[in-house]
């Protein structure tokens, strides 16, 4: 067991955990932040996506020991940011969600995309969102919402 000081959504949080514990489970169980989801544990689905130093990161495969002092932003904090807010608003406006379980990860990936490309093309959307699974299949509305958010941000 080791103690780590993590920067989470702008706050310093201290946790004591086994070094190999994935960041996902530290967030969910030690910090009680359950917005970041467990979908597969092998980085296949993206439900666990957070931002680590601005990079969309799959927290289910990153041991807490490798996080360091890189700032973490989770779904609970991404709305503080203009791009994050626009994406969440677009998701609601376009009525994207069904069961909603994958959507934290979808939104975090979409925010990363829009931060790097203000007007993403269909190809950009397919590539950047290409690793996020939505079992319900809300992909059509995800595409629409990303375009809506892009328009809002333009």
């Amino acid at each position: 067991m080791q103690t780590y000081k993590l920067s989470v959504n702008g706050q310093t949080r201290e946790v004591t955990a086994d070094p190999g514990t994935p960041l996902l489970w530290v967030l969910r169980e030690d910090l009680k932040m359950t917005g970041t989801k467990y979908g597969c544990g092998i980085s296949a689905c993206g439900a666990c996506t957070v931002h680590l130093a601005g990079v969309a990161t799959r927290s289910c495969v990153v041991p807490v020991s490798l996080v360091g002092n890189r700032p973490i932003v989770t779904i609970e904090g991404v709305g503080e940011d203009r791009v994050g807010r626009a994406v969440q608003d677009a998701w609601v406006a376009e009525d994207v969600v069904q069961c909603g379980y994958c959507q934290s990860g979808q939104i975090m990936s979409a925010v990363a995309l829009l931060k790097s490309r203000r007007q993403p093309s269909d190809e950009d959307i397919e590539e950047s969102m290409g690793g996020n699974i939505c079992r319900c299949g809300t992909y059509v509305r995800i595409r629409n919402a990303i375009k809506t958010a892009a328009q809002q941000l333009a």
Partner: protein
Amino acid sequence: MYSDMALRGWSALLILIACLACSSTLCPAQETSQKVASTNSAAGIAAWQQVYSVLTTPRCINCHTATNYPEQGDDRHRHLFNVVRGPGGKGVAGLNCATCHQSANADSTGVPGAYNWHLAPLSMEWQDTNDGILSSTAVCQSLTDHSKSGSLDGPGIVRHHEQEPLVLWAFQPGHRRDGTARSLPPLTHEQFVAATRTWVDAGMPCPQNP
């Protein structure tokens, strides 16, 4: 009684004999350099084949693709989860290499990692677009083609093989999520660097027959 001309003739003959002698054991230095030249070439090629055997091991070649995707696993299948090369070989926003691969192996989750995990540029492709491994000649020529952007000279290649974190990673590639160790290249890192040096010192010869 000996004339100047006779003296010059005898001098010339002596010089000629001396030169001829040099090509025999009477002049060991010159003979060695010629023998060394042919010996070095053979040794150099042998060293190259050793280097090639490492470059084409999955741990290295999986990121030296000619396509817009990396490979993974000992069976070198296309990397899952739709990851793509991206403009700088680092993936795309939302799906960067760094989205999963950190600066060190994550054995608790089975994801390999090293500093600055990314794809080798297309100029360093060692496969064809059907994921077939290129021949020893082709890869050697690729490494020694100085018209390619980002190409390294001899010392540069030695340094790269000695110090580049992603190269070092290949020799400590970590464990999969089922606990098994990833397979290693056929040489140790030290042997790999030594073979590289030998090859470079030999003038980076490439095998003739593709």
